[in-house]
């Protein structure tokens, strides 16, 4: 039974500072599993490559799920692949995060209506933390998504579930409608 | 107390005896050829401890030199013996010495 499993009711200064250190470590060293499915994977590779260089954030891909913290589901998950994705996800040690990259893994994307063999969203089989939209998402978008994951981790803590963290985040984050309004402003500007 | 704290020749001899006995036991009772080989290695180690112990407490180089040659021997022995074991295994599909000697090719 480790500390990260513990349920702590009173969160004093000590706990929070331990939290901060541990969260900092986790968010600074997110090792994704080198795992590409489709076109998005190429953009993921491009993000890893020199021009965007994910290693700046301490993100560098490991090929074994055992040593990775983050699963970037980059591409179309098909029915045949779904079970493998579950297995691979399960084989990652906790704490683990899932980033769904691209329309396909968000919700089936371009293949959602007639794609009989396409899983309509990877969140049907594994819990997803952050959804990155785009088809394929630009490297910038992927980096943005990873920063969102870092934001999420920052909110986590000993004895806090992921849901709590999300709630905490939701309190801080903006309403999606505002995003649109903002977009409107950007577009009109 | 003195007997336990002042490490002397007898301590080493005792250990070497134990190793030797364990090695003997393995050689005598185990059926797996590889474990028998391990037993032989234990015996050689026990012998080496004795050589070195006597060498130290007698102050000559003989023990050291002989133990060196024993190690050479052990290496050669291990190489050849394991090659034989592997060959036995290839032929009889087992490393069980008790069944090997009753088997014919």
């Amino acid at each position, binding site marked *: 039974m480790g500390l990260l499993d513990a349920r702590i009711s009173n969160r004093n200064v000590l706990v929070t500072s331990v939290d901060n250190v541990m969260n900092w470590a986790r968010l600074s060293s997110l090792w994704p599993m080198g795992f590409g499915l489709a076109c998005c994977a190429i953009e993921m590779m491009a993000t890893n490559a020199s021009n965007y260089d994910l290693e700046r954030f301490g993100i560098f891909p490991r090929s074994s799920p055992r040593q990775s913290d983050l699963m970037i589901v980059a591409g179309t998950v098909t*029915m*045949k692949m*779904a*079970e493998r994705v579950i297995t691979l996800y399960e084989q990652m040690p906790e704490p683990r995060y899932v980033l769904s990259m691209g329309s396909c893994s968000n*919700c*089936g994307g371009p293949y*959602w*209506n007639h794609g*009989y*063999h396409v*899983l*309509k969203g990877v969140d*049907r*089989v594994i819990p997803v933390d952050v959804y990155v939209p785009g088809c394929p998402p630009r490297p910038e978008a992927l980096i943005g998504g990873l920063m969102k994951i870092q934001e999420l981790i920052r909110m986590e803590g000993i004895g806090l579930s992921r849901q709590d963290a999300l709630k905490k985040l939701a309190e801080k984050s903006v309403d999606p409608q505002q995003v649109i309004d903002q977009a409107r402003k950007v577009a009109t500007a | 107390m003195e007997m336990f704290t002042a490490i002397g020749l007898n301590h080493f001899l005792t250990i070497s005896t134990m190793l030797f006995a364990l090695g003997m036991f393995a050689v005598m009772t185990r059926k797996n050829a590889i474990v028998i080989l391990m037993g032989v290695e234990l015996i050689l180690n026990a012998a080496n401890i004795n050589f070195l112990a006597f060498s130290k407490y007698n102050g000559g180089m003989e023990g050291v030199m002989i133990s060196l040659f024993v190690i050479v021997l052990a290496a050669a022995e291990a190489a050849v013996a394991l090659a034989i074991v592997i060959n036995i295994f290839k032929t009889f599909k087992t490393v069980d010495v008790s069944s090997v000697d009753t088997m014919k090719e």
Partner: protein
Amino acid sequence: MDKAMEEAGNIMSAMVQESKAAYDIIRERFGEAVSEFDANPTMPFFEVLDTARWVDIALFMRDDARLKFNCMACLSGVDYLEEGKLGIVCNFESIGQYTHRIAVKVKCQRDGGSIPSVSCVWHTANWHEREAYDMYGMVFDGHPDLRRILCPEDWTGFPLRKDYQVQETYHGIKVPY
């Protein structure tokens, strides 16, 4: 359609003429086993009527010195729903020998129909036939390894048939959106 055929019969492009020449050789050898030549300007083809001779025709096409269709460029399954048939369309060409190209159609019954496999003539037919089987469900007789190739082994139905209904769940995962 008819008009187009007529036109094509009158003025055939060089490519179609080449195909026609190749067809004539086959026709000469196999007679009624093959249908009339369809001088489709974009893809001239003929149909194999006697499917049992399909492998022979294929072998002849590959090995005859005048044809040398050594490359099967494509093999597509097709569902002829109205005719109640399934079929394959193969595109052939001759690499390095001639410039002629031709397409061949082979059809079989929609239910329980089978087509002889030509994977013993062209390696490439092997996977293409598996794919056609996977998508349409026609059986290729004599195929060495006729398994589904794209869909999972335990997938139900043949997705590209016109009347395909997608299954509700697969291994407990919901399939439709």
